[in-house]
């Protein structure tokens, strides 16, 4: 474990409960993400991973339980407020501004940090700072060529890459990634894994992913979620071998 793991948690999820009718999507989830750590949450489909993320970022109100960022409770804060307090995320089902170019999508993400959201006069696209930074991010995810393509007209995988660029560019304290590798080809996911590794330490990352290669390559710790319950939390190395995990999730093929 790195020295970072000692530092205090950037994100704490405390006994979260959420039911949809009879179904308990979150059934007392407790976990934390330390500053600079990548904490992977894996689990079968419908285990409640996305719901967990939605509750952390405030799109869904939990029935019970608490979410703390940097030690402060978020329960009272609406979603956009949490975002301002340094919470960023990527979406499992891509959420981009289709009529904006790749570049504009990233610029939007960058300017949202500036808090000038009500500036009625200046044009962010003409702001060198933003444009340069945006180009840099597009470069990192490998989309420079597509900078002026409309998001709606990009290939699925390209959109996934852009999704990540937008999420990362905001440079949040806590970053929630919902299946970032989904839809990317082998090469792209390899690249993305490398990128995330290179950025390691910048953000506290909660990573939801079904691509085990990526998970084991990135995660410091892994939690396994089954039917809304955390059945395992521990260092990646353990998870690989842990019987419960294999039974519940990995199946015989463990990379």
């Amino acid at each position, binding site marked *: 474990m790195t020295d970072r793991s000692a530092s205090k948690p950037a994100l704490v999820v405390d006994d979260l409960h959420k039911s949809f009718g009879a179904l308990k999507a979150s059934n007392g989830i407790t976990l934390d993400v330390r500053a600079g750590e990548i904490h992977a949450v894996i689990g079968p489909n419908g285990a409640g991973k996305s719901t967990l993320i939605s509750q952390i970022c405030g799109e869904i109100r939990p029935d019970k339980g608490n979410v703390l960022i940097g030690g402060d409770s978020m329960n009272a804060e609406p979603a*956009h407020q949490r975002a301002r307090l340094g919470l960023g995320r990527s979406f499992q089902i891509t959420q981009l501004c289709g009529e904006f*170019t790749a570049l504009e999508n990233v610029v939007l993400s960058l300017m949202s*940090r500036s808090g000038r*959201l*009500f500036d*009625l*006069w200046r044009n*962010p696209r003409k702001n060198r700072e933003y444009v340069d930074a945006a180009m840099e991010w597009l470069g990192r995810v490998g989309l420079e060529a597509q900078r002026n393509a409309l998001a709606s007209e990009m290939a699925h995988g390209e959109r996934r890459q852009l999704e990540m660029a937008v999420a990362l560019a905001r440079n949040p304290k806590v970053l929630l990634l919902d299946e970032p590798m989904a839809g990317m080809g082998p090469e792209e996911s390899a690249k993305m894994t490398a990128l995330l590794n290179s950025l390691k330490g910048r953000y506290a990352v909660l990573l939801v992913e079904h691509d085990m290669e990526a998970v084991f390559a990135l995660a410091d710790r892994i939690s396994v979620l089954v039917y809304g319950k955390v059945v395992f939390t521990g260092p990646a190395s353990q998870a690989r071998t842990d019987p419960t995990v294999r039974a519940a999730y990995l199946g015989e093929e463990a990379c």
Partner: protein
Amino acid sequence: MRQRIAFGGLFLLLVAVPIAQWLNYPFAVSFLTRFAIYALAAVSLDLVLGYGALVSFGHAMFFALGGYVVGISAFHVTDAEPLFGWLGSNSALIVWPIAMLACGVLGALVGMLALRTSGVQFIMITLAFGQMVYFLLVSLQAYGGDDGLLMKRPNTIPGLNLANPTVMYYVCVTALVVWTAFCMRLVDSHFGMVLRALRQSERRAINLGVAPHSHRLLAFIISAMGTGLAGVLWANYALLVTPDMASWAKSGEFMAVVILGGVGTLLGPIAGALVFTGLEGVMSALTEHWMLFVGPILVLVAVYGRSGLLGALLKERHV
């Protein structure tokens, strides 16, 4: 492209009247004024409709309010006892700002409630408020009920005689140009970009820290004030304000004008206004069955004019 169209249009607006006089068709001035006023309303509506996807089916209420503020304050000057101790006024410098302010306030109230909904429900709730204003005006017997209010003379601006059609026209054009320029700047600003982002992916925008409600509300208020200004000018042009300024049909007309010209292009709606008022004016003069021709024309634009008259031209983007 956008620039070229903008300046081209501006040039036409300025020379239209001299040309009309030269062709010795003075009536054109009156028509052009009407067009400019419609355009102003349409541009304002396009701000929310095109960039915020807030399809307001009640915008006529602001048009009417703007007009009635002018009408009523004039009414109190001429032939009625003071209103809350205020003797009313004919001075544009006093009345027009008041009118726009009033529209802003109404916009804020309606917006605050209406923005709880979205999509079709938003269309209908704005319609509902529009209709309420309409019925309110109809039952304002002190101010002529559904016959509306006649004005003796237009407002006064130091050094300008609005009673002179040409002057009136240039005042309207100035208002139109300034407002449009402002809106064009607005939609490219941080605020504008956020507004458009909200339209395309609300979830994303929120998770970038955008407070959706307050952004939309501000846009709605600004749009309301612009439409109100159009109403103000209308009152001065027609010297008559009637409740049907607030009717749903009027809101529909504004919407038609915007779509006709090209949603989310700001300049498009101006062209739309020209064509719409033109069709109505010319056709109704030609035949009593003018609707038989205007209707299909609108249909053709909707079906084939991909995104309105200028939409195709203006949609091309520049980062």
